[in-house]
């Protein structure tokens, strides 16, 4: 019984993390049909910015609880600088190109950003450990969990709810949905698709950076963290059905629980649990859990 509780809690924490990391990717794919590999770099840059900014902020002697504000600020800062630069500077000229070519463009960006990160921050690790212990911890089934884990779950739910509300209830969101559904028809209705792309990419970048920012307190921020995360995010997005928000949420929960189950019960399977889930889901639901019906081309 205890182990089931542990599996569920660990699974949910991991799921929340997966969702936070993947949600930007699925949003960008949904609207722009770009499988953005540079997402991994945005994540890493978010983590780096948070670690260095918050580190120097706390070194000035401010109260530790203000760290969270600086972290949030880092995500927004990264999103609003990198997003526009890359979208306006490069991607804008590529929209008429093939989906796969766009993947390669973002792959090239990913390679470039990996080295740019190294040029800016060097290779020495950065640490942002304060927030992880700051919130205290709780105990359940004889296991101690830092409350930061609850914060992760809370953030995942907040982001999910916010995006759902944004897409369903606001005017901008409805425009976005229209573009997701059919770009051409949307533009004939007078929607400025160009602008929608710009906003979506910026929002996606903020979310990617936020993923990195929220992960920073739990890891050592150093080269290579982006590359490892992007595959996870891909898996979530594909399993969930590309571009689907509820799909990503469900996929994150599924993968999180399966992985946590594997770790507790069959530790050796952990290595490919995520790919087994991916293959199994795709075999039975070829387009992921939630996928839009595509009309046949005649």
């Amino acid at each position: 019984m205890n182990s089931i509780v542990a599996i569920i809690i660990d699974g949910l924490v991991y799921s929340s993390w997966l969702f936070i990391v993947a949600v930007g990717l699925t949003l960008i794919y949904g609207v722009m049909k770009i499988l953005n590999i540079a997402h991994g770099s945005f994540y890493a840059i978010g983590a780096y910015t948070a670690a260095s900014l918050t580190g120097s902020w706390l070194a000035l002697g401010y109260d530790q609880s203000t760290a969270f504000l600086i972290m949030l600020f880092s995500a927004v800062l990264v999103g609003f600088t990198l997003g526009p630069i890359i979208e306006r500077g490069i991607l804008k000229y590529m929209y008429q190109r093939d989906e796969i070519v766009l993947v390669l463009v973002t792959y090239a960006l990913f390679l470039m950003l990996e080295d740019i990160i190294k040029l800016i921050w060097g290779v020495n690790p950065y640490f942002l450990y304060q927030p992880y212990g700051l919130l205290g911890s709780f105990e359940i089934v004889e296991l101690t969990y830092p409350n930061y884990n609850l914060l992760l779950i809370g953030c995942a739910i907040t982001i999910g709810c916010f995006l759902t509300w944004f897409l369903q209830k606001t005017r901008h969101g409805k425009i976005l949905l229209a573009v997701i559904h059919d770009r051409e028809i949307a533009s004939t209705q007078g929607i400025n698709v160009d602008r929608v792309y710009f906003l979506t990419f910026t929002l996606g970048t903020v979310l990617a950076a936020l993923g990195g920012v929220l992960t920073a307190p739990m890891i050592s921020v150093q080269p290579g963290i982006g590359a490892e995360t992007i595959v996870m995010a891909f898996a979530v997005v594909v399993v969930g059905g590309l571009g689907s928000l509820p799909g990503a949420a469900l996929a994150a929960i599924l993968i999180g629980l399966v992985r946590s189950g594997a770790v507790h019960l069959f530790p050796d399977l952990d290595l490919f649990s995520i790919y087994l889930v991916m293959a199994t889901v795709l075999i039975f639901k070829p387009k992921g859990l939630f996928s839009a019906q595509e009309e046949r081309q005649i």
Partner: protein
Amino acid sequence: MKSFKIKIALVTIILCCFSKAFADDDAIKIGFISYLSGPASSDYGLPAKHAAEAIIKSINAGNAPTPYSMKGFSGTQIELIFLDEAGGSTKQVTEFTQLVMRHKVDFVIGYLSSTNCLAVAPVAEKLKILTILLDCGTARIFEENDFKYVFRTRSHSTMDVIAAAKYFLTDHPEIKNFSGINPNYAYGRESWRDWNAVMSILAPQAEKQSSQMPKLHAGLYGSEISSLARKKSDVIYSSLWGGDLKAFLMQASPRELFKETKLILVAGEPNLQNLAGFIPDGTIVTSRGMTSGMMENDSKLNRWLIEIFQEKSGGLATYPVYSTANAILGLKKAYEKARLTKLQKAVPMADVAGVQDGMKQAYLPPNTKQIIAAFEGLDFETPNGRVEMALGKGHQAIHGTSYGTTRTKDGKVYTENVKFFPAKEVQPPKNIKSLDWILNGFQLTK
């Protein structure tokens, strides 16, 4: 017109690549390969590169302490060519051949990953180029092969495991159970296998509980920590390294995993100073030799290394820095020994007519074969203590190691209770595979 220009540009690029890149001169060229990008760059690859630069600079200027005080290698200046180790073995083999055949380097030093070592070694053999493997934990290289041109100036990782067990069992002979968390790739799996083997001999009563194998660079270890915490084993054995280790400790410490459980880290040393605040007091760590972070090792060589590395990078000399020193100093010693042997053998007065010719011959630099002959079975002083090329027909080094227990004071990690294990106690003798040696109860035969 545009396409014509692009064509020209492409042709130029190709021509540039195929043209001879480096001017020929008399300097000895050494290719140096370590991780310059990716997860292993920050704790291992770059310190190694910085160390190589610092050491070569000091050696070229003749500033190293005795017995390495001669300028360069026997007076010849040394030039380094750096390459990135990231990107997989296929690419490493390609780049290795390019380095050797195109740039005509005289020696190659490098490779931290066992995969790359295994891949590159046979190629070095074919190309007949003296190659010194910097690190690579696996014992397989010289236990499964006979290499003539390949040397390793670091002991293999079996030593870490055996010494860890011996150190731990001295204070805790009554150990009832243990768990492990090791990265899921060759090194982690091998290390965990060896640990189980050692425990089955030295503490047969101890029961294996949880065996966690997270993916390399997994980042989050929440489930693993819960699973380990529920077992409450006496000790957790871990070969996690670099960012993985730091992340694991950052996540595990607030969860009080180490309240009743001891922790053994066999690859913890390069991070020790970064770990202040997360590493629980009483953690058992190895230095894999005698490194500055841990051991009181006040030799002249050690002070020299710490000083020049500090000057170059501003950091504390850690394990990869010492690995680099071992490789370069070993090569220097072998080179100079070979040259000396050659000079001694030359008897210029024997044949009066050939005197000038004989002298000329004798003063030519030694060739690879002569250096290899000098290198085999060599033993030499390093900042790391004495290194002896004892195994693998004189190609694989053995050296002692030390273990200690950590204590964090004022934001700095100190090690106490440091115990030194001489090479013979923790390294198999010749002609037996390390795993067989362990399973035979550290005897040659049963």
